[in-house]
C-alpha cells in the first residue's frame, strides 16, 4: 500500500466514524416534526442529508433510543394491510436533541474558523 492509499483509507475511515457518530442526532432530528415509522425515517435521512444509512443499523438504533427513553413507539394500523411501528420523541428526547444540536453548532462553528485557511490554497 502506498502512502497516498494509506492516507485515503484513513480519511475514509474517519468519514465513516463521523457519519456513524452523527446518526443518532440525525434520527432524533428527523422526528422533530412529528411521528414517523422506520422506513419514513430512513427516507428522511436519505433525502435530507448526506448520510448513507444502512437499514440494518437504523432499526437497532431506534430500539436503543426507545430503551433510553428518548423516543417512544406505538403500532398503528395502516391502509397497506400491515401495522407499522411509529416513533416519536419523548420530552427527554426533545431536550437531548436540542442539547446535541447546540453542541453540534458550537463545534462546527469553532472548527469552521480553524479550517478556513485550508480551502484557500491547494496542498
Amino acid at each position, binding site marked *: 500500500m502506498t502512502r497516498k492509499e494509506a492516507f485515503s483509507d484513513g480519511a475514509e475511515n474517519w468519514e465513516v466514524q463521523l457519519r456513524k457518530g452523527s*446518526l443518532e442526532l440525525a434520527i432524533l432530528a428527523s422526528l422533530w416534526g412529528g411521528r414517523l415509522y*422506520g422506513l419514513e425515517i430512513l427516507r428522511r435521512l436519505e433525502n435530507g442529508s448526506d448520510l448513507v444509512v444502512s437499514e440494518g443499523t437504523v*432499526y437497532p438504533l431506534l430500539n*436503543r433510543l426507545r430503551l*433510553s*427513553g428518548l423516543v417512544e413507539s406505538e403500532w398503528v394500523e395502516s391502509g397497506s394491510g400491515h*401495522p407499522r*411501528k411509529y416513533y416519536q420523541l419523548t420530552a427527554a428526547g426533545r431536550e437531548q436533541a436540542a442539547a446535541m444540536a447546540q*453542541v453540534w453548532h458550537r463545534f462546527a462553528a469553532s472548527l469552521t474558523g480553524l479550517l478556513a485557511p485550508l480551502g484557500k490554497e491547494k496542498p
Partner: protein
Amino acid sequence: MTISADSQKKIDDFLNVLHTNVRGLGEQEASDIVAEIRSHILDKASPAGTVTPEVVSSILAGLGGPQELAKRYLTDEVLARALARRYVTDGLLTRARVTRSPWLTLRSLFHWASLSFAGIWVLLASLVGYGLGAAFLLCAMLKPMHPQKAGLWLLPNPSDTSLSLRLGFGTVPVNGRELLGWWVVPLGLVMGSALIVVTFRLGLWSIGKFWRLRPLAGPLARGERV
C-alpha cells in the same frame, strides 16, 4: 401486491433466524422486533407488483444477515442499559449535591460504586465513617444501661495497643483498662455526630471532585456502535 411462495419462504426464514437470535431480549421484545422488520420488508416490497425472490433478496441484503442484525440489537440493548445506569447515577448524584440529603447521598454512592473504582472507594470510606459514627453514638446511649459493658477499652496485650469500643454486649476484655468511664457518654455523642457529619460532607465533596457530570458524553463521545 402478490408474494410468491418462494419469496414468502425467504422472508419467513430470515425472520425465524432473527427471532431465534434476539430471544435473549425477552419474548415480547423479540416478537416486536420481528414484527417491525416484517413490516419494513413488506413496505419495501409493495411498490413491486409481484414480489419475486430476487426482489426479496435485495431487500434482505439491505438489512444485512439476520444474525448480524440480531447482534446489533443485542449490543445496542447492552449499551442502552449501560447508558441508562449512567443517567440514573448522574441524576441521583446531582440531586444529592443540590438537596444535600444524607439519604440521597448514600443511595447515589451505591450507584456510583457500581460504575467505577473511585465510587467503590468513596462508598467503602463512607460506610466505615458512618459505621464508626453510629458505634460511638450507640455506645454513649448504652452506657447508662450497661455501665460495666459499654465503653472504650485499652486491650491488655502489651504488644497490642489497639482500643476496643464496647457497645454493652458480649464480654468485656479480661484485664482491659477502661479509658473514659462516664465520659464516654458526652464524648461518644460528640464524636459520633461529628464522624457522621464529616463522612457526609466528605461524600458530597468526593462527588463534586471525582464524578464527572457528562450527560452528553455517552452517545457523542463513544463513537457509536452502528
